[in-house]
């Protein structure tokens, strides 16, 4: 292997690629060449680094220096200063907002400090398209250990000891699922990787597939060995072209090395994997619907039992695991179930990957031990709320999750504590909302999503959710009645109890949780006919508070209809006849003078 003194790890996750990281790589390479550094400095393309808010990102090793928001114009200076003369360039370093100081090293940045990487153990450290680099970091070592020194029962037992639970949302114990799948003696059996990530704002699975596809393949092969299955399918959204591209490369490389196919590593065990791009229906993330979709049928859940482990794909025993679950498998077999279980809470072991988005400073992908508090996630890792706004709620678990208020920020995030709070882990989307968010409108948005995505097979979900949406629409238009709150609660509970699949059973969660924690906002909409966050346009007066107005004129500039009259040193006024209620003035006003 050729030795380079410096490795430049350029992030090529979807986030950084969309802000130009591949173009950056080309500029870097040509500049290094021009400076005669091509033999000393190597440019490596990695998967998602996680700190998407600061992209495009580049990390320089061996020092571990973190550069952010680089542009092609920065490259000549950077190459001369740092890679030739060894002087890190301060202006491209990350600046910590709380202390307003530059933090040169990745390991010192708070965003990374609180994280523990297990599923994402190779993130930013390997070239996702190079199987050798995966192997160098203990890749496929678990597989060879399993194939040559463990029985399938021992493999399953190790997973049971680890306490690993499904990372796709429901949290079903993985070891138990594998044991079930092993028990049924009907062949062929199948292993499915569920990469149909559909929650708004969630991108955990995509990042794992893009950054470390081999970890998922290795997990699937091990699962196949435990079940005596020889065929795996990866169901991944067609909207994830980069993930599919890298998976294809990974599968091809693994086949060439004999890590997929016949007689893997000379062990006599056969296993192969194919990719199935899904068309992007939310319901196809549900396991039985996913299997119908794989069979070429309409994606609709079916009644269980029988469970998929007994009769799944093509009616055969099938184990379906989420991407992140499978990525956790190889280290468990290599280091032991007890190693995995040493981290986490009583009922939830290990770590969880979250996609942190919304109104938070550090948007990105994080992995933290189970039991980490929301406070740590939002403030220490997320860096708090931007633009001097206040935290209002965090939406956890996607469209069937819940909105948790500030009073629950000290909740330790795991499967059980979230369940108690009326929320759910879901696949790991965390959307932070500030005080300019209307909780009724948020509940309405997610209900609207669930109505759109309902497959329509069962009445409670198809009709019930539609009725809930109508009631919510009425409330945000100012036509609500106090009885509506009780109607929503009653109907929500009916839908939860009587729906057919997991999606219907959880779809009322956003409404129920916002009523539970933000009931006063519902009451303000219904009784006071006002929207405290100034979001629901039918309930805003569009009136300038003459005392709060600082006479700056920003609202007048923002108004597309010239409905605002303002002159220097006089408060603004809105001519209501011309106003189209677009909220541009509300967003422009820094003093919250418009009501």
């Amino acid at each position: 292997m050729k030795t380079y003194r410096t490795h430049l790890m350029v992030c090529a996750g979807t986030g950084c690629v969309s802000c130009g990281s591949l173009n950056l790589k080309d500029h870097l390479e040509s500049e290094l060449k021009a400076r005669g550094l091509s033999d000393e400095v190597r440019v490596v393309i990695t998967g998602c680094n996680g700190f998407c808010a600061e992209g495009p990102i580049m990390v320089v090793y061996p020092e571990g220096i973190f550069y952010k928001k680089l542009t092609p114009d920065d490259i000549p200076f950077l190459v001369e200063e740092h890679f030739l003369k060894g002087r890190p360039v301060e202006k491209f370093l990350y600046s910590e907002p709380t202390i307003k100081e530059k933090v040169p090293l990745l390991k010192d940045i708070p965003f990374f400090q609180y994280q523990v990487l297990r599923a994402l153990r190779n993130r930013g450290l390997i070239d996702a398209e190079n199987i050798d680099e995966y192997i160098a970091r203990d890749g496929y070592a678990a597989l060879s250990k399993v194939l040559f020194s463990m029985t399938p029962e021992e493999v399953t037992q190790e997973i049971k000891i680890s306490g690993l639970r499904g990372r796709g949302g429901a949290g079903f114990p993985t070891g138990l699922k594998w044991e079930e799948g092993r028990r049924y003696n009907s062949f062929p059996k199948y292993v499915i990787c569920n990469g149909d990530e559909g929650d708004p704002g969630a991108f955990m699975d995509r990042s794992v597939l893009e950054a470390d596809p081999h970890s998922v393949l290795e997990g699937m092969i091990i699962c196949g060995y435990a079940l005596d299955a020889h065929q795996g399918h990866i169901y991944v959204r067609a909207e994830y072209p980069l993930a599919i591209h890298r998976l294809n490369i990974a599968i091809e490389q693994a086949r060439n090395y004999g890590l997929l196919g016949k007689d893997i590593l000379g062990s006599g065990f056969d296993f192969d994997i194919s990719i199935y791009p899904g068309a992007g229906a939310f319901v196809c993330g549900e396991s039985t619907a996913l299997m119908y979709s794989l069979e070429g049928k309409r994606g609709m859940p079916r009644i269980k039992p029988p469970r998929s482990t007994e009769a799944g794909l093509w009616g055969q025993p099938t184990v379906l695991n989420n991407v992140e679950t499978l990525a956790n498998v190889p280290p468990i077999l290599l280091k032991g179930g007890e190693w995995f279980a040493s981290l986490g809470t009583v009922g939830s072991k290990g770590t969880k990957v979250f996609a942190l988005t919304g109104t938070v400073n550090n948007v990105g992908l994080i992995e933290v031990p189970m039991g980490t508090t929301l406070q740590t996630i939002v403030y220490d890792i997320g860096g708090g709320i931007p633009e001097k706004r206040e935290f209002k709620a965090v939406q956890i678990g996607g469209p069937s999750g819940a909105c948790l208020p500030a009073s629950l920020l000290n909740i330790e995030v795991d499967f059980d504590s979230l369940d108690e709070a009326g929320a759910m882990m879901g696949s790991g989307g965390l959307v932070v909302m500030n005080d300019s968010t209307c909780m009724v409108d948020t509940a309405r948005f997610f209900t609207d999503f669930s109505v759109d995505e309902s497959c329509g097979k069962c009445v409670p979900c198809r009709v019930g959710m539609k009725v809930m949406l109508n009631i919510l629409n009425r409330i945000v238009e100012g036509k609500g009645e106090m009885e509506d709150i009780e109607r929503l609660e009653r109907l929500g509970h009916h839908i939860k109890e009587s729906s057919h699949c997991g999606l219907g059973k959880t779809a009322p969660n956003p409404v129920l949780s916002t009523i539970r924690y933000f009931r006063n906002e519902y009451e303000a909409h219904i009784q006071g006919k006002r929207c405290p966050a100034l979001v629901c346009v039918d309930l805003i007066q569009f009136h300038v508070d003459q005392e709060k107005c600082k006479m700056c004129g920003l609202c007048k500039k923002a108004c597309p209809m010239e409905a605002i009259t303002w002159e220097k040193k006089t408060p603004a006024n809105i001519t209501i006849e011309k106003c189209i209620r677009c909220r541009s003035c509300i967003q422009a006003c820094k003093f919250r003078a418009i009501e």
Partner: protein
Amino acid sequence: MVMAKLTIEDLKRIKEEVRSTTALREGGFRARINIHMGTCGIAAGARKLMSAVLKEIEERKINDVIVTTSGCAGLCSREPMATVEILGKPPVKYCDLNEDKMREIFTQHILKGEMVEAYALARGSETTY
């Protein structure tokens, strides 16, 4: 591209071969060689030192030594210069180097841990990250 199927031994071999590449990104080094790459250093032949060091590392398959660069140390007349640091011990600056001297320092200081007095200028180092 069709390759021969791997065995467990092949897997271990690939791991060992590529290990030096990924180890560079993981920290935990035993020693560091810093080559001074100011305009003066480059003019005096620092690039040759760099090539010599990288070649040594490559040929000896070493994965616990890192190579960094820094700017002018302020002593332009004594370039090319390099600073060698065995972790936990004070760094040593060497001056008036050439490729042969650099290789000698590599064997004596980096590998055997014995400072080469004859080429040494001083102990101590400027700060880089």
